[in-house]
């Protein structure tokens, strides 16, 4: 394995962690937008309680992806920035407004009108950001982007396949969020998110199916990955098993198992995309090898990553241990009503 492959793998891992962690934070915003029924207020309070202490740390995975990309694969960073200028600007607006509105809502007047306005901005931008992020990924994988120093066609990304991937991202993030929130909620609130997770799981299947159909003509490399590589069948089978397991666990109220299955499912979807377009970084013009920085830079960067990771992961564990209970990543359901923290707690009383 070359250093470029290793670094490409590290970027993919960072992206997967971004999806699993920050993705669920955006998904929380989706459920804020779609809050309904008699427990509307409690649903929103649970979302706020769940993401408050962790969203900023989760967000850093994206910064890490950006930095690793421009250090290790500068040509790809430059090419993507030029060809996807418009969606990336939209992504920034989504990210900025989501984070700002979330914080502003907590510290602004607790009147309903004020809170509702911030809530709308928070949840609206929580839909926008994953949508454009998916479009960016879809465009990179599709082979529609032609990278050159002279510039690029500004709207090459505006096509059915990237848009379908955008919808898939929204559905997937909402699915992850509901699966996590079902664990963190209790009683009838848990019931709400259990049903939402099931619904979002169906949306993931539908949007993934749509993207796969469109891939046949519009993203040949992705389609090949789904159908014709040696790992295609095992990957599809495992992903399907995870999805089936999640549905079964959700219907039986085994929320910890469902959460683990949803995590496996999302991981395999993102990893499958990475495997399908390997060794391309931007299909069809840039590969890991052709876009790579000199070998010495990659080796130094990999060592820095290893050292940083050795400090980072224990700290991250501490964060989740403090805010997500004794066994933050538990996959077992001990009794039907597991421990959970009350959703009513807010940051230091305001």
């Amino acid at each position, binding site marked *: 394995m070359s250093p470029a492959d290793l670094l490409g793998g590290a970027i993919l891992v960072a992206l997967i962690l971004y999806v699993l962690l920050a993705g669920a934070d955006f998904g929380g915003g989706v459920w804020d937008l779609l809050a309904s029924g008699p427990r509307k207020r409690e649903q929103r309070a649970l979302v706020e309680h769940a993401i408050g202490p962790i969203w900023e740390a989760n967000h850093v995975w994206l910064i890490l992806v950006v930095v690793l990309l421009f250090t290790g694969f500068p040509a790809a960073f*430059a090419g993507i920035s030029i060809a996807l200028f418009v969606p990336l600007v939209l992504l920034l607006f989504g990210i900025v407004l989501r984070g700002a509105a979330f914080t502003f809502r907590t510290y602004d007047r607790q009147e309903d009108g004020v809170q509702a306005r911030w809530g709308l901005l928070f949840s609206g931008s929580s839909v926008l950001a994953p949508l454009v992020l998916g479009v960016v990924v879809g465009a990179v994988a599709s082979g529609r982007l032609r990278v050159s120093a002279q510039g690029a066609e500004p709207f090459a990304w505006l096509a059915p396949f990237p848009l379908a991937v955008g919808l898939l991202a929204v559905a997937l993030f909402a699915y992850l969020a509901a699966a996590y929130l079902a664990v963190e909620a209790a009683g009838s609130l848990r019931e709400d998110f259990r049903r939402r997770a099931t619904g979002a799981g169906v949306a993931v299947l539908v949007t993934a199916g749509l993207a796969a159909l469109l891939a046949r003509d519009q993203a040949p490399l992705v389609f090949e990955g789904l159908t014709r590589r040696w790992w295609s069948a095992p990957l599809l089978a495992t992903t399907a098993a995870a999805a089936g397991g999640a549905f079964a666990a959700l219907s039986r109220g085994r929320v910890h198992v469902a959460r683990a299955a949803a995590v496996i499912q999302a991981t395999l979807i993102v990893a499958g995309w990475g495997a399908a377009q390997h060794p391309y970084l931007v299909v069809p013009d840039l590969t890991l090898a052709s876009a790579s920085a000199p070998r010495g830079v990659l080796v130094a960067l990999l060592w820095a990553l290893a050292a940083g990771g050795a400090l980072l992961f224990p700290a991250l564990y501490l964060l989740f241990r403090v805010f997500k209970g004794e066994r933050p990543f538990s996959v077992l359901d001990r009794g039907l009503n597991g421990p959970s923290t009350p959703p009513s707690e807010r940051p230091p009383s305001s």
Partner: protein
Amino acid sequence: MDDLLAARALFGMSLAFHIVFAAVGVAMPLFMVLAEWRWRRTGSEVHLELARRWAKGTTILFAVGAVSGTVISFELGLLWPRFMAFAGPIIGMPFSLEGFAFFAEAIFLGIYLYGWGRVPPRLHLASGAVVAASGALSAFFVTLANAWMNKPAGFQLFAGGATAIQPFDAMFPPGWAHEVIHVLISCYAATGFAVAGIHAWFLLREPGSAFHRAALRIALGVGAAAALLQPLSGDFSARQVAAEQPLKLAALEGQFRTERGAPLRLGGVPDPERRETRFAIEIPYGLSLLAFHDPGAEVKGLEAFPREQWPNVRNVHLAFQVMVGLGTLLASVSAVALYLGIRRRAAPPWFLRLVVVAAPAGFLALEAGWLVTEWGRQPWSVWGVLRTAESVTPVGHLAVPLALFMLLFAFLAVITAALLWRQIVPRRSG
């Protein structure tokens, strides 16, 4: 609007906005930790209230800083893809390490802000200390990348690209130390005076408030110490700039001719056409003395360099005068604070008024200083290697994102200011 100008305006605006929050993110956690530490040691409830209230302000400022920093990391590619294609691998090391520092900041800030009463006291205080340290570390790494742009090192040019890249040589280019020290001190001075100014204003209205007195002591204590150190660091900077970036020094000082025993100019307007700086108060031998610690030393003037490599001398000189002038003001106020502190006298009203007036000076000086280093490097984005005009994106119509981000930043600035105000005003305590 010319796309290059729009790109520069957008990037400059984004940084000018972010730099305020970044500086607050470096210094504010230190204040909060000092307040909490004092509470834990003495049981003073006022300090607990102070730590909590400062922590709230920090949450708002940190969130806006985190998202505006994200804008910048993307804009590096969106606006300057050719710069990043060239420089990314060379300066990626400090940026990568900064990524981990940012992780530490975000993780432990989460634990600090939401962990009151949830984590053991020592872990809580330690989390705050990690936030303070990793904030400073972030600034350290990012400034290293800027130092490299001013004095590129650690690579060789080959056919328009970089080869033989030595990431750790590039991370510590000549002159890195002065820039890093100067930037870090400026964060504490600017934030210290801004916070002290707010509490001084309340102390003028409620002279007996133990809360605001405690706040003033911490903020002004740190701010004044930093502002008194800054002239020393400035002297160190001037000598390193004189040695490593003589063209920038000449622009800073409005020095057109190469001469021995060059004077120091206070104020004045450089006129690049007539090649002289007019209306300045000149202190004989001052520049030679300050830059080389030798009154007879030769200072290279702008004329020693080709005209097309000059930065905008007028802007650079004026920004430099603003920075030095405001820095001097802050150092003077700090000297008074030190005197009052030594005499153990409570701050009299005239001094509180002085602190209120000086409150914005630190951030203005910080912005001016940043303009000095950026304008002073033009027309290069990587000095002597890559011109700014060659770095810009081929994407057109950049006036559109410029206008959109202007609106976004204005919106964020107004709301942030209003919410911070709300945190301070409604529950004034004694």
